[in-house]
């Protein structure tokens, strides 16, 4: 099993690597991740690489255009936009990854039950998904965040709880396909319990396609998190997020183009990178693409 699986991953990687765009996207995501992890060291104080913390105020230079001192300019309070964006990367990536992890867990759970047991379980899960899909995603996310108080955690939970239906449908479809395969019969014949068959045999085999949908999921979560911040219901101030920088950009659109351009480019590139990785990964998993 392990040998076989590593063979599949090597093949997939080889196909994935063929797309230059995908490799660039992967390198970019790596770069942003490093920035996010190292943010407290890179942008902390006058002695760090970027000589400002995210909340350091330079009163003399409010709404100052980019120059040698403030590479990306300053906002209305005189805070360094570059420093805030580097710290904002932490929020975007953390929320994006954790929200997707959550939607993967919830989605896999319901999808696995529906796909494995079929019948009544499948029927109930299908109805549940139908109900969730009736609500506009942003409506639900806004309501959950507002009612339970804005924080990194509620934003994450709100996103996880509203986006799991995709993953559930994915896992369900995969399970319907692989539960009829020989190795599943073999596991059942050897007397394995249901939970063991689901977790040890079926889930690992459904993992790769689910990972594809997770990559799109991260892109979507980052996009929605920044939209929530932009609307003033994301991670609360003064925490720097890409969306909240854009929110203040809105009020100064006539004077400060740099507030509009830089955080927007950051969101766009990051979302696009995860979308591209998901797309090329999906193609790479498909043996027909050889």
């Amino acid at each position, binding site marked *: 099993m392990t040998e076989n699986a590593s063979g599949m991953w090597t093949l997939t990687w080889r196909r994935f690597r063929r797309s230059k765009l995908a490799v660039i996207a992967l390198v970019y995501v790596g770069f942003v991740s490093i920035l996010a992890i190292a943010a407290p060291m890179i942008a902390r104080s006058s002695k760090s690489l970027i000589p400002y913390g995210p909340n350091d105020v330079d009163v003399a230079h409010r709404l100052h255009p980019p120059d040698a001192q403030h590479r990306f300019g300053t906002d209305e309070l005189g805070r360094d936009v570059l420093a805030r964006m580097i710290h904002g990367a932490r929020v975007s990536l953390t929320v994006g990854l954790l929200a997707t992890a959550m939607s993967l867990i919830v989605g896999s759970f319901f999808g696995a039950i529906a796909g494995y047991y079929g019948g009544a379980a499948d029927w109930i899960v299908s109805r549940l998904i139908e109900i969730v899909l009736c609500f506009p995603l*942003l409506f639900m996310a806004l309501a959950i965040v507002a009612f339970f108080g804005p924080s990194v955690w509620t934003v994450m939970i709100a996103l996880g709880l509203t986006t799991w239906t995709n993953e559930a449908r994915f896992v369900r479809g995969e399970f319907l396909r692989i539960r009829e395969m020989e190795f599943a019969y073999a596991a059942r014949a050897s007397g394995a319990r249901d939970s063991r068959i689901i977790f040890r045999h079926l889930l690992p085999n459904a993992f790769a396609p689910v990972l594809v949908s997770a990559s799109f999921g991260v892109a979507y979560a980052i996009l929605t998190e920044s939209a929530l911040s932009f609307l003033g219901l994301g991670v609360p101030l003064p925490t720097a997020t890409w969306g909240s920088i854009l929110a203040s950009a809105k009020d100064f659109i006539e004077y400060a183009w740099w507030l509009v351009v830089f955080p*927007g480019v950051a969101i766009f590139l990051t979302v696009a990178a995860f979308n591209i990785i998901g797309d090329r990964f999906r193609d790479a998993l498909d043996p027909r693409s050889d």
Partner: protein
Amino acid sequence: MLTYVVRRLLYGVLTFFGITIAIFVLVHSVPGDPISFYTGMHGAQSLSQVVLAEIRHEHHLDESLIRQYGWWLRGVMTLDFGHSFIDHRLVTERIAERLPNTLILNVVAFLIAALIGVPLGMWSAARSGQTIERASAVTTFLLYSLPSFWVALLLMELFAVRLNVLPLFGMTSDEYLELNVMMKLADRARHLILPVLTLAYTQLAVFARFSKSAVTEVIRQDYITAARAKGVTSRAALWHHAFRNALIPLITLFGLTLPYLISGSVIVEQIFQWDGVGRLYLEAILTRDYPTVLGLSMATAVATLIASLIADLLYAAADPRIRLEAQ
């Protein structure tokens, strides 16, 4: 067909009750006393015990959860969502007066997106493998990754601030009332352009991607190969055989578009200060105007339910395999 219709309608009724339960559960899982739902921003602390008990009784909060759900359901059925905390007007009235503004924005955006996106997707599917097709695939992909609020800001920066040819935001100009009929229409149209563009581009990307994959799927089918084998030109095979059948899955997509349009409306209406239901929802959320939040959530969920029901029935009417499979 009849069995299918009956079954689909029954599921619809079930989903409707599911929606009412979902909203009820959300409201009752909010931390703190549910009374804050009815006292609004004033907070429960500032009121005396007697008044609180009265409010509790008035809103049936002193009854069992089952009975409370019954009252909520009754309100939903009679379209009674109570009065707004903000201006004490009926929630249904507030929604009804904002609805036309949202409709005009979304209908125009939807038409533009569908009329450009669908042919674009079909065209690029027919050019599968060529450079131009791959370029358009990457383009729709990038469009898809653009945050709409950022696009809105860029459009404002470009057309309203730099070029100064379109209004920055709002639905009409300050001097609107003094204009004649034609000028009024032109003024409204000018205000529509930027919000419609913002709403349309993501939808356009979605439609293009979806119709492209629908056509690609159909082209692989045996009956297309058969048509080509009997001597039909590739152009005729596409037009007469592939495109028609590829249009059927689009019905489902159109049915599912509503919640995305509404989500998009919240952002676009807020940025462009457009007085529609999306903005109303955000205002209600920010001011904790719970009756309005509940009424709007319920209304949009039911609208989505009805749209997907209609789409499913149309799909079954267009594609006999669906209704036969269901029997």
